[in-house]
């Protein structure tokens, strides 16, 4: 009996997967379920009281949460299209260059992603510094601004200042993916279209673009998920300020859970954020599968 089972199924698979499972269940799966559970409680010191969906209902009328959600959506809506267009533009311009040129540019645009986010942040803090930052100095000498602009201390500009840094740290991976995707476009197709007299734009629109749609969708979703999770840039550059102008959901989860220790509410925020991201990635996988099949 066991032998027959063994022939059909290879039960040693369980042993190979066990070490990973132990870590996964303990440090990912269990906390995930526990988080959903915790979002249904109110915490008072060591005591916890079951309150059902109260935490979720409260979020609906919590102005700081709604503002943070709005900021998060705004960051995603601005950053994602720019990342997609810019990375495609850069990839198109470098994919058929020599290997050395390609890896030079790949390096340039991946640098902000590999070097510590803290290093990136401290240099941008200096660039944006109102009194002796490079940005104000250059803009003043070009007569674009007159005074010392508080890029991060001003609620009209702070979120854009952060989005710019976010874009620089997000663009490396999409470029690498686009270079790979463009390399897979059959050269014969492009050559024969050129012989038929098609312009570069027509070639791009009718041949290249349809073939790189799956890559584009993958990039859209991963960039969206990453932008939803923006945290370090916010914490280090503005701490959500001024007056919550740059507070994001992820930053608020941290503030509520770690600083104020309102575990129930913070967990509810986490679940809402996860639900939004889950919906977006489900939509993506549907589209992706449709296009591949």
């Amino acid at each position, binding site marked *: 009996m066991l032998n027959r089972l063994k022939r059909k199924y290879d039960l040693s698979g369980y042993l190979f*997967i066990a070490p990973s499972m132990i870590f996964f269940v303990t440090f*990912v799966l269990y906390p995930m379920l526990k988080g959903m559970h*915790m979002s249904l409680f109110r915490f008072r010191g060591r005591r916890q009281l079951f309150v059902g969906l109260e935490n979720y209902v409260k979020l609906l009328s919590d102005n700081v949460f709604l503002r943070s959600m709005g900021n998060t959506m705004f960051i995603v809506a601005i950053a994602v299209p720019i990342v997609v267009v810019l990375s495609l533009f*850069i990839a198109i*311009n470098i994919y058929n260059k020599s290997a050395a040129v390609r890896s030079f540019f790949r390096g340039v645009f991946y*640098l902000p992603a590999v070097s510590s986010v803290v290093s990136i942040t401290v*240099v941008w803090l200096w660039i944006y510094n109102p009194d002796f930052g490079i940005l104000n100095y250059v803009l003043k000498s070009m007569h674009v601004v007159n005074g010392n602009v508080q890029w991060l201390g001003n609620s009209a500009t702070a979120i854009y200042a952060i989005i710019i840094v976010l874009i620089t740290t997000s663009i490396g991976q999409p470029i690498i993916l686009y270079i790979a995707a463009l390399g897979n476009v059959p050269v014969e197709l492009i050559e024969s279209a050129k012989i038929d007299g098609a312009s570069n734009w027509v070639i791009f629109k009718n041949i290249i673009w349809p073939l790189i749609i799956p890559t584009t969708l993958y990039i859209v979703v991963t960039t969206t998920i990453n932008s939803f999770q923006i945290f370090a840039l916010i914490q280090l550059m503005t701490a959500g300020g001024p007056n919550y102008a740059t507070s994001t959901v992820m930053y608020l989860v941290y503030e509520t*859970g770690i600083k104020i220790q309102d575990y129930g509410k913070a967990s509810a925020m986490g679940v809402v954020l996860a639900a939004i991201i889950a919906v977006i990635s489900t939509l993506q996988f549907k589209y992706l599968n449709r296009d591949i099949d």
Partner: protein
Amino acid sequence: MEFKKFGLYNILSFTLLSALTIFFIFPFYWIATGAFKLQDVAIALPPQWFPTSPTLDNFRQLLVPLTARWFFNSVFVSLATTVLVCATASLAGYALAKKHFPGVKLLFAIFIGAMALPKQVILIPLLRLITEMQLMDTYRALILPAVGWPFGIFLMKQFSHSVPDSLLESADIDGCGEIKKFVNIVLPIVKPGIGALAIFTFISSWNDYFSQLVFTNSEAMKTLPLGLASMAQQAEFSLNYGLLMAGALVASLPMIIVFLMFQSFFAQGITVGAVKG
């Protein structure tokens, strides 16, 4: 006519690409030069684009036991995480790609589903777990949760598909044991995958600011990026920019070197992970 249009596009794209390159390189230029500037030079206006009297003073200030400890913590945590992730993920990836057992599809679906989940969503319960297990402020708190993250399993599954079934079958016929099969046949074939995963894990563990911030609280357990961040935050009104740039240089240079050395490995890992279904 045709030639002219081509030329115009080329000029435009060349200009834009150059501008972007300068924009991306500049912050690193500013870190690299800023590290050699004393505070009065760093905040001088007009800015000193190139330090005329470079100083090693900032680096001398970093050479204290505490910063050395931060550096050690970063190296140790990243190395330990990398070794554990590569070991567990190569085993699991092989099983998911090549073995048939009840629940294999479901397990993979769960791993993938968890990967799409933002890591920070489990922050609060994970923090409580770490506290209850009395791991707060230990190396284990910085290492073990990262090993649970399923990205490596996914990547190694993709690479394990390239192991030919015929090779595994003939090993079975020869009476080769499971462990021997894994070590002698699978591992040599998936080596490039392990290389890519190792670089990925090392860099992301070094840069995992969020976990480092939440799971440590003593000065001695801080990592280098975290220590740098607290230097920047403590001195909010009198930031010593030269010192910060020296810190930023030391915190990011190792990663930049690792990345530049293994760039093609790295690119391969990204594309295999993303493109093959």
